[in-house]
């Protein structure tokens, strides 16, 4: 009797999970495993796949384009991550205060996050147009002749970084804001009694106790950074002359433009291993700087 009861309980659980479970297996797990198999072949979609061992991996590791796209990602992360963290911290402290219309401001800063990347990237492509874009028009008021952002070898990546910051700042802000509200008022009261200054309070209480949220944001942002794709695909397609090419975009082109499925799969797995390694390193480093309240 009891057995039947637990059985029917499990049945209900499984039945309810079935739709999402089926999706997970069909669209994530099976493709994941097949890409692992494909990465050891030279499959080009139309001819029979041939097993080639580690050739694809070796080729990818020695491939100039793979390496330069990795370098581009490093450039992106170096420009993106510190800026988005500092600005996110600034806005979260600002929006954490009690002031008039704070909810409205929070909504404003979050709006870019919920819009579709493709849509905003198209809009930004117009705004950044070298000849007729609003950005350069605005700069001209200050006597600055803006570059042709997305066609300029030097300025294309900064433009991508800036747009990404604009899009993600709301997300970072909200996460940090939640982290801020977790910090108990007791600490601040104690600090005031001890006569701490505003800056002292920020660096000795707020920042250390915010490190768990910062840690989360850094991990997520790094993973997203390595997977940089949408904005690049829409705004520059990796151009000009490969200045903004990223690994995921290379994978896409190799798979669906050049039909080198095996090679693209190998690149995907290399990317996975890189992200995995970076995340592991972060995990092990977290003991050194992340403070947990309890």
């Amino acid at each position: 009797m009891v057995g039947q009861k637990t059985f029917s309980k499990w049945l209900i659980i499984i039945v309810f999970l079935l739709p999402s479970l089926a999706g997970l297996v069909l669209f994530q797990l099976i493709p994941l495993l097949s890409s692992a198999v494909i990465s050891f072949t030279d499959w080009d979609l139309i001819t029979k796949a041939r097993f080639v061992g580690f050739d694809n991996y070796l080729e990818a590791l020695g491939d100039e384009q793979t390496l330069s796209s990795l370098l581009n990602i490093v450039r992106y992360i170096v420009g993106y991550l510190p800026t988005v963290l500092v600005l996110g911290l600034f806005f979260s402290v600002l929006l954490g205060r009690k002031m008039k219309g704070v909810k409205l401001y929070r909504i404003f800063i979050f709006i870019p996050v919920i819009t579709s990347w493709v849509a905003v990237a198209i809009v930004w492509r117009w705004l950044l147009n070298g000849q007729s874009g609003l950005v350069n028009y605005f700069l001209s008021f200050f006597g600055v002749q803006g570059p042709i952002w997305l066609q300029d070898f030097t300025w294309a990546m900064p433009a991508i970084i800036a747009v990404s910051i604009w899009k993600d700042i709301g997300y970072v802000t909200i996460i940090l804001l939640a982290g801020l509200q977790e910090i108990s008022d007791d600490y601040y009261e104690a600090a005031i009694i001890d006569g701490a200054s505003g800056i002292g309070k920020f660096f000795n209480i707020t920042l250390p106790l915010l490190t768990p949220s910062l840690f989360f944001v850094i991990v997520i942002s790094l993973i997203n950074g390595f997977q940089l794709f949408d904005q690049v695909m829409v705004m520059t397609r990796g151009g000009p002359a490969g200045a903004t090419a990223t690994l995921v975009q290379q994978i896409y082109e190799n798979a669906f433009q050049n039909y080198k499925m095996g090679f693209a799969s190998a690149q995907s797995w290399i990317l996975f291993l890189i992200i995995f390694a970076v995340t592991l390193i972060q995990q092990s480093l977290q003991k050194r700087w992340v403070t947990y309240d309890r």
Partner: protein
Amino acid sequence: MTKKSRIWSVLILIAVMLVVTACGGNNGAKQPSNANTPADTTAANEGNKEKDPAAEPKQDPVTLKFMQYTASGSQEETLDAMVKAFEAANPAIKVNVEVVDYANYYTKLNTQIASGDGPDVFEVGYENFASYAAKNTLKDLTSVIAADTSFKPESFQGLAYDAFNYGGKQYGVVESFSAVVLYYNKDLFDKYQVEYPTADWTWKEELAAAKKMTDPKNGVWGTYAPIQFYEFYKTIAQNGGGIWTADNKPNVNSKENIEALNWMLGKASKEKVSPPLNDDTFSQPDADLNAFMAGKLAMLRAGTWNFGRFAEAPFKWDIALEPGNTQKAHHFFADGLVVAGTTKNEEAAWKFIKFMSSDPAAVSLRIEKGWSTPAVSDDAVMQAYYDQKPPESKKIMLEALDSLVLPPVGPIPDQWGDLQKAIGDELEKAKLKPDYTAEQALNAAQKNVEKLLGK
């Protein structure tokens, strides 16, 4: 009892949900193809095929899956009419048409072939045809053609017909061909009192004329040609160069080629008769065609498939042979129909190809609607095509074919995509990367191509 019925109601609910979502997904998948095809016939066919297998043996209707791209954008209705005419003439054969835009065509085609659900008949451009043939994915039609006494290869323009021959085997039949010529805006030429381009023009005359007509303040440019792989392989031919030597060795960084690339870049960077290389507007697809249409380009190298697009231009225009440097060279493109190697309906597929490429009903529809240039050799039929104006000098197309350059597939026809990338990426660097010279770019491209051969 109540518990049991609850479980059952949950199960039923899930079942309903699955059915609903499955239906939704199915519709979604079908929509793109239906959007471009005669919905009524397609739906009817699918209905027949799926729900009524018992009816099949009665009349033995064969359903062909057909995929193509050249109708996309403007000629879907013409294609529809051609297919309807075929079905009327062959009641036992139904054709499911899927039209895909060029940018997504080969991706979609290859994924369908990979999934085992590929089309029986599909359209392919000459430069990609070699790759499909080399990979052994097409049906050899040589014997079928030989057996069909009512089909005469001579009724096609020889060159275009032979384009779909690979290794001595005929894999397909050409439907249409096209070339790239020099379009020019007569009104601008008149305004600046410049003589119209003639067949003996070289780059020098082109440049001199372009200089007279360039007016950057008003965004009017003397001449324009895109900087990309296709334009490159033709332009180097106009300077006596080539991607390959006569014995198929890579020769990308030859003196002639470097000179030609410098000319391509120099029109913008040095002579300033073309828009700047990093111009944002001209980096968008079709920007050059739109600029010509807006009267902002005096001369433009563009494909003959744009006649229809420019027909409504608010100024007078015509075409001329492309100026070359040491010699003439023109692009030649051919689109043909091929049969997938996996098809089970070879006979029906052949009938369909034959009809679409050479049946008077199909060809005249093509001409009537101004849809590219049929490759038939019948003078009377072709005259109807040439009589359609503009452009005034349409027949120049035929002269262009006297100096044609074929896509330089060289010794690696199966790696056409890689070859394009190996050279195209370097061309883009020469165009946009500061201080990167034409010579550096082509040296790097040479290395890339050598690497492809080494594989």
